[in-house]
């Protein structure tokens, strides 16, 4: 949490164009206010935002692409885009909404770019990740081989059926179920009304319940 992702020297070299807050202040600051400080060159504030949101964004990307290396690459891209757009950032929407909007766009673009590979790879979701050399969903060593097999089968089913959801339903489920965003915020990200978001999620969960009923 306290890791300073940036070279402290860089922060010092930046012109002191505005009254910058000390790192300890950020906890009490609104994300939007920190973004406005970034515009005037306060990298320490940006570092705080990265630390705050890196995990949810990496996890979101991981569930979108099911590859840790790619997920982290895309998550980095999200933060780079935030940095690049610091001048145009307006505190009209919540910072996290904006962040997830960038993330969903990048994830969708990635999915489109790798469509062919993906349709082949979804069949082999349980295989060792060629990039990291691991199966990331770490197994509990205490459970036996047979229940381990069942667990894997269940996990594959979950992944496959979440991945098989229509794009917007999938993103809505990931944001709602795993990242804890509310209807309003998901609606803002996906440009849907709150009630449309609600029914989108309802349809998604209905589908999942139907597809996964053998496992519950």
């Amino acid at each position, binding site marked *: 949490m306290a890791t300073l*992702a940036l*070279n402290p020297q860089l922060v010092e070299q930046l012109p002191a164009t505005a009254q910058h807050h000390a790192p300890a202040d950020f906890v009490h600051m609104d994300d939007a206010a920190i973004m406005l400080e970034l515009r005037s060159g306060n990298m320490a504030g940006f570092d705080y935002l*990265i630390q705050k949101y*890196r995990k949810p964004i990496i996890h979101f990307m991981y569930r979108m692409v099911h590859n840790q290396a790619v997920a*982290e690459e895309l998550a980095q891209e999200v*933060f780079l885009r935030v940095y690049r757009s610091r001048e145009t950032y307006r505190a009209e929407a919540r910072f996290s909404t904006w962040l997830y909007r960038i993330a969903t766009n990048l994830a969708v673009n990635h999915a489109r770019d790798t469509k062919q590979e993906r349709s082949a790879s979804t069949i082999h979701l349980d295989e060792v990740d060629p990039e990291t050399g691991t199966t990331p*969903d770490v197994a509990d060593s205490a459970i036996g081989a047979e229940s381990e097999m069942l667990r894997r089968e269940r996990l594959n089913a979950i992944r496959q059926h979440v991945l098989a959801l229509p794009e917007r339903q999938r993103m809505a489920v990931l944001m709602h179920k795993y990242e804890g965003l509310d209807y309003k915020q998901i609606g*803002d990200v996906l440009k849907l009304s709150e009630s449309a978001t609600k029914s989108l999620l*309802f349809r998604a*969960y209905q589908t999942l319940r139907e597809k996964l009923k053998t496992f519950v």
Partner: protein
Amino acid sequence: MICRDSKSALPDLLLDPTAPTNSAVRAHVDSCAECRRELATLEATFALLDEWKAPEPSPYFDQKLAVRLREEQANAPAGWLERMRARLLFNTGRQFRPAFAAALAVALLVGGGTIANLSQHPAHRETSATITDLQVFDKNDQALQTMDQLLQDESPSDDNAAQPTT
């Protein structure tokens, strides 16, 4: 509350059972056997979905991001160029983009040349003019490449990366 409304509110109830906004659904579910069954199966699905864990960020994530950000800072063009690019990406109509890119290229050429001439020491004008020109062209080339990349990167849906207007 009727069953149809109740059912669509069930995912919300599942995520935040004690929220005051969910009290109406809660009350309906308590009095309706069908919705109770619905809730139970959804609960089971939710619990199942919990099994899908995402791995912790790798130790290299912060390092790599720091490097990429530093590169970004080092390559950061002048403020107006950054603003121009942002405007190009987020605010301008797609149909004007090629025109904007061309205008920007011209501006860079003129601007770059002007800056180079101003900063150039008079005594070295003869020897460094060619080098300066080459440097300016090099910079323009880089800027155009970045521009192309940015324009290509952005698929139509990427316009959404700008902030919502609401």
